[in-house]
């Protein structure tokens, strides 16, 4: 019994590291640009396909392909901010919600036409490897993914704390007007925020590829998980999103183990609704604008 729980906790923590990359992106965009990016999961999906094609066509290891997916998605983020999101900032909720929602629909359905609905997998030398200790089982691919995800989160945290640009981003998220008065160019800061958020999503895609299948709708799981984690971890808070994501991974894993849900999704939704029911004040304080 203890072993089953421990195993479920380990599985949950490992996948929670990936959720964290997606959640940090969502919370960064929400904190700095003040919009919710409904398309964040789709950039994970694009990262996965990019890694898949690099692996199958050029033989690049999916984890090594991070060095391609992250810059490509960074540029995509800057362009999306410049050509799309910038145009709806300061308007009411409708364009802000439905612009990124339309983007999400567009990316999913174009991918469906381009890549078909087939599941794509990449088999690496370490895909089947696992570490064993004390009766527990730790898949190597997931361990690497977790370690890299944590390292990237750490780098981002250091960037936000120590660099001028990072400080400017935190300033812009705390008070846009004052930040502008201090000479911070909001458009530049927003573009960097989008770029970083999408680069993290792309990294999540690459890290997933050795042990997860790519298909056009794969982003849904990750974005919904991220939304819940971001609400739980207080909107706009990077460290909060990280911790909440790890907890969500564990909760999902325990849910699958003990409730026997076929998909983790029902557990996620239940968590979201339970959060809304049980902690409305804490949430409302973060959400109301």
């Amino acid at each position, binding site marked *: 019994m203890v072993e089953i729980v421990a195993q479920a906790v380990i599985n949950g923590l490992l996948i929670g590291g990936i959720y964290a990359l997606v959640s940090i992106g969502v919370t960064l965009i929400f904190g700095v640009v003040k919009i919710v990016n409904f398309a964040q999961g789709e950039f994970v999906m694009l990262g996965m396909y990019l890694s898949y094609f690099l692996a199958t066509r050029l033989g690049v290891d999916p984890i090594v392909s991070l060095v391609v997916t992250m810059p490509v998605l960074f540029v995509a983020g800057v362009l999306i901010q410049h050509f799309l999101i910038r145009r709806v900032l300061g308007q009411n909720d409708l364009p802000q919600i439905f612009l990124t929602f339309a983007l999400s629909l567009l990316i999913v359905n174009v991918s469906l036409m381009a890549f078909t609905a087939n599941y794509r997998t990449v088999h690496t030398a370490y895909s089947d490897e696992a570490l064993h200790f004390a009766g527990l089982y730790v898949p190597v691919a997931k361990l690497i993914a977790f370690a890299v995800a944590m390292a990237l989160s750490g780098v981002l945290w250091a960037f936000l704390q120590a660099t001028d640009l990072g400080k400017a981003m935190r300033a812009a998220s705390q008070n846009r007007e004052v930040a502008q008065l201090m000479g911070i160019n909001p458009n530049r800061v927003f573009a960097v925020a989008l770029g970083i958020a999408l680069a993290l999503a792309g990294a999540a895609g690459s890290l997933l590829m050795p042990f997860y299948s790519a298909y056009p709708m794969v982003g849904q799981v990750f974005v919904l998980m991220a939304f819940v984690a971001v609400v739980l971890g207080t909107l706009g808070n990077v460290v909060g999103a990280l911790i909440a994501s790890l907890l969500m991974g564990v909760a999902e894993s325990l849910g699958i183990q003990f409730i026997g849900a076929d998909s983790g999704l029902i557990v996620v939704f*239940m968590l979201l609704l339970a959060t809304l029911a049980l902690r409305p004040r804490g949430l409302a304080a973060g959400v109301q604008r």
Partner: protein
Amino acid sequence: MAIPVRLGVAAAGTIVAAVLPLVVKSPFALDVLIRILLFAFIGTAWNLLGGYAKQFSLGHAAFFGLGAYTSTLLQIDLNVSPWIGMLAGGVVAAIASLPIGWLCFRLRGPYFTIATIATAQVLMLVFLKLRDFAWGAEGTTIPNLGNAPLMMQFEGKAAYYYVTLGLLVVALGITAWIERSRIGYYLVALGEEQDAAEAIGINVPQVKRRIFMISAFLTAMAGTFYVQYIYFIDPQTVFNFSVSIEAALVSIVGGVGLLFGPLVGAVLLETTSALLQSQLGSIAGVQLTVYSLILMAVILWRPTGILGYVGELVARRRAKRPER
């Protein structure tokens, strides 16, 4: 638009719509017309909550599915006519909207939207699991009784067309009445600025709750009609996310918070979808790709929707005309 003008447009439109099946005989064309009216109806229901109160739901499939399941269960298990089942489904959906609203209205803006997505998905997953009570994932076919108007089954598509037309006229009537009633002004006020509406003494939670109930009731009626029309029900069909998406899309493209907005949007989107299907066949992803491009274009260039833009043009022309 002035009230008499609008009434005239409505009357003329109803007459044209009523005689249309006398001219249009092809089943394909009638099917497209039925889909236009059905989604105009669902969009009109969505518009009450999303357009006037600015609570953007992407979970209306929850009510569509509840309506469909209520009437189908009543019909198959108890042999109750879907006409009664349709109203029963509306009641079930309206009651369900209370706990759903209790949860979702705690959040504002985009997070309200996310919560509504989650509730519809949870309901779908629940119905996928309900094997003993409601056929689980396989769903069931609805027994075909031939021409049985009392059981909402007809030979030929024209009768189905008139049912959807009737539903749409009812929903437009309710919307027009709400627009001019006290609750209509409350809705617009809370849609503009929730805190300010509260400050001037509007009971915001109550207004939201009531409009959500009406919106859910109407959406559920559409669910009953739809499964009677296709003779089949399963969770993936009636709780499908695309139902929620289309409900919102027809309203946004046509013009949110405008009486005829969803109808205009439904005409454009369903016609586009039918043309795509007849030209390209059903390739997975084409329809939603085009829908998402239309949605994006509307948001970036005409955020008030097609009808909203027409209204602006008319207003501009009026303004140019010299004072009488």
